[in-house]
């Protein structure tokens, strides 16, 4: 239990570092996937070792995977659109949301 939680915490931190430092938008999305996976490991570990409702943790993890897939689809579509309009996907290229 303890080992799995620590593993998930380190993986989450690596993802967090990636989100904060990457300049490429696709790199940020990939780091985001790492963080999703860390959360999933936590859910499944708790599901195995602390059972109150036998399958609740795994069901949650399944739904998280689905949400992550939807998020990746939309995110990458937006990245493509940005690339088409700005000819680059580095985060310092576009700041039209800032005012």
């Amino acid at each position, binding site marked *: *239990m*303890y*080992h*799995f*939680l*620590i*593993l998930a*915490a380190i*993986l989450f*931190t*690596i*993802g*967090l*570092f*990636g989100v*904060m*430092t*990457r*300049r*490429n938008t*696709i*790199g940020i999305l*990939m780091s985001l*996937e*790492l963080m999703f*996976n860390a959360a*999933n*490991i936590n859910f*499944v*570990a708790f*599901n*195995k*070792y*602390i*059972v109150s409702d*036998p*399958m609740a943790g*795994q*069901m949650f*993890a*399944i*739904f998280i*995977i*689905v*949400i992550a*897939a*939807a*998020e*990746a*689809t*939309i995110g*990458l*579509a937006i*990245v*493509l*659109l940005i*690339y088409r309009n700005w000819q680059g*996907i*580095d*985060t310092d290229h576009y700041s039209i949301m800032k005012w």
Partner: protein
Amino acid sequence: MIDNGEVGLAFWILSVVILGSGFMVVSLKNIFHCAIFLILCLSGVAGIFILLNAEFLAAAQVLIYVGAVAILMVFAIMLTSDLASRKIVQTNQNALVAFLACLVFLTSVVWLIRSSLGSGVWNFTREGLPSDNVMIIGKLLMTEYMLPFEVVSVLLLAAMIGAIVLARRERS
């Protein structure tokens, strides 16, 4: 008490693979190599799921993450960046600050896990999960988790339509 479980050699190998490739994902210069290491990392997580008696989840992980999401990433990289031509700096100027912040975050989370697991408020079970977990998940999806299942289906449909609408070229 801290429940150590009995983690075997498989756990250590998988952790090294996951953390190593995860670190590669956030630190390599070539974004395409990052995608390859992301695939390795996600496969390692599937292995961890098997260790935790979640075989269905491991299969879903391989199918959806490794098979779909990672390949989608590779497609997006191919479509957007001219990756072969240049080695650009991939990190921005606040890498050091981010590293320190992550260190603080990690330390506090580890401290939290230690103190929380040591406090004894959790009641650990020793019994394993039922082994026919695919069947149970199937039943639960059709009974108890019917509503979330339907909602998430609608969400996927919406995401699909949204992606098509976003990525479509406007005719001029």
